[in-house]
């Protein structure tokens, strides 16, 4: 069960991929959308994040992928206090995080191949070094025949798979997915979940934010539940 001790020093958190310590967050002068959030994501763990709409899941994910700063409290990314990170250090942290958004955030002017290869291209890798791996991954998520297609010509489920392929292509240390199975059929959802568990088995820490109870019940892993900006933790046994 993930837990946090507020007096833990950053150097001691190195086995935590992400650590939140008393984190609160508000937008502008509005009310706090996250309150006193404290948790660890131990290296190599697999966890679900659930909660109703408006509970603060997206805000919490924004803090994890460094799109927002907390209003209070401390967050450690891979043992680094994020409040002390210089702007030029953010890309290195982000490259260690694979992020899947509910709204995909694919680039419509690029093909499926280019979208999936984007993290590798941005990291300065040569195209000929990654072309095979990217093509294989695209085949694996079932889009081998749509490698040249542009995302806006794909269905929601197909775009979701492009986003997932892009998130995992760089073999990130942490994979964060926001409703990754929200737009796919049950068979594809199971296949994607298998991809996530396989990545986790290979050492990637996985955090999946979802409403999908079936998905949550399919694995015996810790669950973080957000309600009204506050976090509860627990564990649900796999149903089968």
């Amino acid at each position: 069960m993930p837990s946090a001790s507020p007096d833990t020093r950053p150097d001691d958190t190195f086995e935590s991929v992400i650590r939140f310590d008393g984190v609160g967050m508000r937008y502008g002068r509005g009310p706090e959308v996250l309150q006193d959030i404290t948790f660890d994501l131990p290296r190599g763990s697999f966890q679900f994040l659930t909660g109703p709409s408006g509970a603060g899941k997206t805000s919490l994910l924004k803090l994890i992928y460094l799109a927002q700063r907390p209003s209070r409290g401390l967050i450690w990314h891979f043992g680094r206090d994020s409040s002390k990170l210089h702007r030029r250090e953010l890309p290195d942290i982000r490259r260690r995080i694979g992020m899947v958004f509910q709204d995909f955030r694919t680039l419509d002017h690029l093909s499926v191949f280019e979208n999936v290869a984007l993290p590798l291209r941005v990291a300065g890798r040569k195209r000929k070094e990654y072309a095979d791996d990217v093509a294989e991954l695209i085949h694996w998520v079932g889009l081998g025949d749509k490698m040249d297609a542009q995302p806006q010509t794909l269905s929601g489920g197909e775009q979701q798979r492009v986003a997932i392929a892009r998130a995992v292509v760089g073999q990130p240390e942490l994979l964060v997915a926001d409703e990754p199975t929200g737009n796919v059929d049950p068979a594809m959802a199971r296949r994607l979940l298998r991809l996530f568990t396989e990545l986790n088995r290979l050492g990637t820490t996985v955090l999946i934010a979802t409403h999908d109870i079936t998905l949550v019940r399919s694995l015996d892993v810790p669950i973080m539940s957000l309600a009204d900006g506050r976090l509860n933790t627990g564990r649900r046994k796999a149903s089968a």
Partner: protein
Amino acid sequence: MSEERLPPTAPEKSAPLLPADSGRDRPLFAVAAILVFLACLAALGARGAWTVSDGWIADLSGRMTVQIMPVDGRDAEADAAEAAALAEALPGVRRAVAGTRAEAEALLEPWLGGEGLPADLPVPLLVDIELAAADPASADDLTAALDAAGIPHRVDDHARWSEAVVRTARLARLMALGLLALIAGAAAAVIAFAARASLAARQSVVDALHLVGAQDGYIARLFERRFFVLGIRAGIAGAFFAFAIALLVTYGGPGQSEGFIPVWSFSLWDGAVLLLAPVLAGLIAALSARLAVANDLRARW
């Protein structure tokens, strides 16, 4: 890895990460081309002002004029000839030419008419003195020589004129350079504004690039490259039209100099300016875009 090893479905070339935006880029191209055109004209004007003012200053500083004052009982033409001979004998004088009464009357003709002046009307005669370029004789040297010979005279070293001309020439140069700097500054400001607008229009792209770990410098370079190319293309267009105007002025303008009015001629220097203009436009555009985008990105964390 050889191309044969690539999966058959993998595209062969990388697509540009910044989507084209012809709706925004076309007007910007037109504005940039016009600014480069104006900058080229200002640069050519600056070159012209420099050359012409150099000529003015050289003309005035290299000459003196001696007025031989008519005095009862003296032969002014003989005095003028003697003054020319004395002047020519001085070190630092290249040539001295004595004017005749007929030439003096010809100079006065526009004001006094062509019917001839009364023979007893005293008319000062002029001696035109061309000084040596190196170590020229001074007005004092000439005055001393003429005083010693007892020739009634007045020496004009054009100091009053040359100071005014030098001032005017310097002002013309400064104005041309100032205009050039202003246009370059305006071009940089327009490009910076356009780069910011372009950044805002491609926010989703920038967000996606940040998300996958792109450095600010990487994103700024994308914009820098795009605006460099735009600057080069606009520079070529602007320089071409400036070249056309320069040719028109060179071959369609007056063939001979009218006093102080310069005759335009297209020089190698002008050609170099027009060739350099697109490169400079590209560099200014790239630098402005990079600074604007980097500045904007820095403000986000």
